[in-house]
């Protein structure tokens, strides 16, 4: 058996007209190495979507309130719209596309959102899924207050949150036991 090296992920370059300085960054995105030229002002959310084609990370407000763009930077959920791509040199980054390979079943967190109907239009869902994934990766089960605190960092306009809370609870039960 040979160990395969993950193939690099190709990035588009800034438009030639871009007036601000370009910088090289190297990072790991969903387990794959990326080296890219980015303009200083490029938001991480736009880098992921427009340069890497990872459109699962959604942009809902661009001022850090709605949480749709939440991704994991070094395993911690952060706002991609409040992070500059240039600040992500040498980080390890995960997006919703990195959770379950195309041919693999959904992760327990993704499955919980499906089974509990914790999603309707699906636009805010990747953000919720990334935050919930981080909760399930903690060493100990987060208490109710921590879960509430984490979920309040996301807006959903469709579900009324009830089924999202159920989904998160199911995912935590599955990870930590009931």
């Amino acid at each position: 058996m040979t160990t395969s090296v993950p193939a690099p992920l190709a990035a588009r370059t800034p438009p030639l007209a871009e007036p601000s300085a370009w910088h090289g960054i190297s990072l790991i995105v969903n387990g794959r190495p990326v080296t890219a030229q980015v303009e200083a002002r490029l938001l991480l959310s736009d880098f992921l979507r427009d340069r890497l084609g990872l459109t699962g990370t959604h942009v809902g407000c661009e001022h850090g309130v709605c949480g749709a763009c939440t991704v994991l930077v070094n395993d911690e959920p952060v706002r991609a719209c409040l992070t500059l791509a240039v600040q992500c040199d040498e980080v390890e980054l995960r997006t919703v596309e990195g959770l379950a390979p195309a041919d693999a079943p959904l992760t327990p967190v993704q499955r919980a959102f499906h089974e509990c109907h914790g999603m309707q239009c699906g636009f805010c869902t990747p953000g919720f899924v990334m935050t919930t994934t981080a909760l399930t990766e903690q060493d100990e089960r987060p208490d109710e207050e921590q879960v509430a605190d984490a979920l309040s960092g996301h807006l959903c306009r469709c579900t009324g949150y009830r089924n999202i809370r159920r989904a998160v609870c199911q995912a935590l039960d599955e990870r930590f036991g009931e």
Partner: protein
Amino acid sequence: MKPTSFDYTAPSTVGEAVALLGDEEREAKVVAGGQSLIPMLNMRLARPELLVDITRIPELGRLHVDGSGKLRIGAAVRQARAAADGAVREGWPLLAVAIGRIGHPQIRHRGTVCGSLAHHDPAAELPTAAVCLDARFVITGPRGTRTVGAEDFFVATFSTAVEADELLTEAVFPPLPAHHGWAFEELTRRHGDFATVGVAVVLERDTATDTVRSARVVFCGAGPVPVRLPAVEDALVGTDVGEHALAAAARVALARLAPADDVHATAEYRREGAAHLLVRACTTAWERC
């Protein structure tokens, strides 16, 4: 909602950072977590020509308790790390609680303690906690390093004692000695919002008389800076924090506070709310003494 064009650099020493900030050719701004700055960049309310990222300066990433027992938080220390730190939770619980009220974990993972202080939104929790805890601020610039007390640090809304060519390198919090009790109370519209109004209180108990020996009372959302009211503190000192003392302190707060209206609440609401929270906070703080 996209930033204007700027350049970016991540120096590895404070000296380099300060030199960059002092460059008269380019208007530079410090970025660490960016959780206050980047929304302003996206809305084009802040238009720097150069961003100086200080998170790659090793010494600014330190959080420690120094030889004299003071908590020193470097400018690149993230809020989540500070709030989770055992020493902070044990020795500076008011600070840990105030940090926990900042936004959401997704914000606190990137936002820094010093960034929130240097940004100085007067409705924010940290500036008020800092004044209440009598924090001191270490500022480095082309003219050297100076230390500023909390009450002199916050100048006006979104304005502090840090000059354009200077860098806030460290916030220093003195220890809370024995027989000191604390509380932080705030009213918010939603979970995680800035305070509509809030109060931080530290009371010291005179164990001989079982009365208040000293008090620090600071309000947020009540003016252009964290509002410390010595008159309220005076009203509490010497009392047993009983019903009458609390009512008297609340009356003073009502009379002295002059907050502003905004879309979330009237000035009147803030005044009343501050007075009400004061009673609650003093009660809690006294129980903790």
